[in-house]
């Protein structure tokens, strides 16, 4: 199973880079779109809006698949942490998502194939290349899910979540803040006018 672990970590790294590339790609396209409209020297490109949308759609679906690996998707915790019902729901969510992954793979592929009959408005590209995101998302989700469920069965729920889940959202937000805890206040000392108004 450690082979799958290594493989999945590699996929995760690759997706991270692809996501950055896609983000950079649509940022540049939109920036060019604004500049070329307002500066007459730049020739307008007719497919910027379309391709930035497609890049965005790939970003969303790849990011969604990645979110499954570390259980980042937003969940309503209806029951008290550690209670029987809570543990039950934590098992349920692992298995139900497999069903959704398979739906994305099987029905998502059928959907993608209908994309050969359609082309995008501006660039005339077959829509298959965009519609196939659901299928790809399903495949990646399934890979991540197999590892999660394998670890769940061999090591138990807590060990698996400990190993794979991200920190809670409030802790992630704090880490992203990355701030000097008293930067602008360091020089100042409050004058004590306690009780004098």
């Amino acid at each position, binding site marked *: 199973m450690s082979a799958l672990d290594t493989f999945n970590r590699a996929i995760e790294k690759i997706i*991270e880079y692809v*996501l*950055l590339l*896609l983000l950079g790609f*649509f*940022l540049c396209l*939109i*920036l060019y*779109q*604004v500049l070329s409209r307002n500066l007459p020297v730049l020739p307008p490109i007719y497919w910027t*809006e379309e391709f*930035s*949308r497609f890049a*965005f*759609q790939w*970003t*969303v*679906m*790849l*990011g*969604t698949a990645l*979110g499954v690996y570390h259980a980042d*998707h*937003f*969940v*309503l*915790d*209806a029951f008290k942490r550690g209670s029987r019902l809570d543990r039950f*729901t*934590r098992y*349920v*969510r692992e298995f*139900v*998502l497999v*069903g*959704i992954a398979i*739906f994305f793979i099987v*029905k*998502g592929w*059928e*959907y993608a194939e209908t994309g050969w009959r359609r082309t995008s408005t501006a660039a005339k590209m077959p829509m298959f290349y965009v*519609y196939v995101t*659901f299928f790809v998302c399903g495949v990646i989700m399934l890979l991540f899910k197999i590892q999660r469920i394998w670890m769940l069965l061999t090591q138990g729920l807590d060990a698996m979540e400990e190993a794979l889940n991200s920190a809670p*959202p*409030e802790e992630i*937000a*704090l880490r*992203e*803040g*990355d*701030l*000097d*805890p008293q*930067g*602008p*206040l360091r020089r*100042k000392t*409050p004058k004590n*006018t*306690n009780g004098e108004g």
Partner: protein
Amino acid sequence: MLSPELFFLLPWLLFGLLGVFITLGIPIAFSLVLTAMTIVLLDPRVTAWVVFQRMYNGMDSFVLLAVPIFLLAGNLINKAEVTDKLIRFALNIFGRFRGALANVNVAVSIMFAGVSGSSTADSAGVGAILIPSMKREGYPTAFAVAVTAASSVIGIIIPPSINMIVWGALTNTSIGGMFLAGIVPGILIGLSQFTVNYWFVRKFNIPAHEPAPMREILSSARDGLLAAAIPVIIIGGIRMGWFTPTEAAVVAVAYALFLGFVVYRTLNGRKVLEASSATVRLASLSLFSLVGASVFGYLISFYQIPPKLMGGIDITDPIVLLFVMAAVMLIIGTFMDSLPAMAIMGPLFLPLALSAGIHPVHFGIVGVMALGFGLITPPYGLCLMIASKIGGIALLKAMGPTMVYLAGMLMVLSAIIVFPEIALGLPRLIAPELIGVR
């Protein structure tokens, strides 16, 4: 497959299944998709192809690209330590009054709101600096936590606002119009919080600072105003027709990079990559819940639920109706993230609101605010969670003072419901074409 005579059950099943799936702890975005999958099995009129097509349509919108891009601008601004500059600026203004740090907290949130459009970034960024300093100056921790959380809600009311972009994309409401309409309500919320501060500061007897020298005030003002220029560029650019909201977001990113690399010299390549990576991962999660909600929204209209709801709810008075809808959204907002909540409630309530003669922009502001207040109410109040984590106290300890702030904010919301002009006045004055003729 259900037999046709049982089809009348399907609208009930739609909401019943969603409720069951969410309670079972299935991620909300996937609960929406799973509900649609189940309907495919039950109703031969809904095919898997339609489900995928609707999900695709849910993300096939150029406007939605503004969401990750504005998030990126906010993260870059945090990395570039712009928050520090804003705090220094606000402290120089408010330092001479009692309870300076509490007021700085609110003032910075107002300025930060104009820079980032995300409330959680505000709680984390401002809280990390101000909560420890407030504790040192003798503020009760619960008060410091409460004012940080409550003030960060302003982030989604003052433009740019990610929540307004999503609301606009979902309901086809003018985003430029909502941006303008959010300014006065956002400032009013800030004023209500200054009032609460005044009361708390007297109660806890908090001292004042020494006034800052003029030179220091001027240099901090330069830094602070450079950052605070972002909303002016965004709103101005949209108003002048130079760019769309999505393009405005890219301009905001470019400006953030300019500030970080050229003016403050606080950014480097590594920080930009970190901010970008965190942004795409986080944004995809929110956006996928919109993808799920889009197919759910399709099923809501397929089963003609809004007209049925209209038949069931016999409220013709727009103010009463708006109060009822705001109450429902407040409750939903307490236990659900606001973006998916919005994706379910917006399309469901909009037909009702329009038929009662409520202006869509007015409705949008009320909806964004009502759902946004959920950021500081348990069980799922993300801003309150972040702030109490920084303060190092249990969330429930900070509940008391938070509720005092919430009471003030609810008063502002009620005022906006009763007097639509509070929201609509400014866009009518500056850019009537953005909010239509009504």
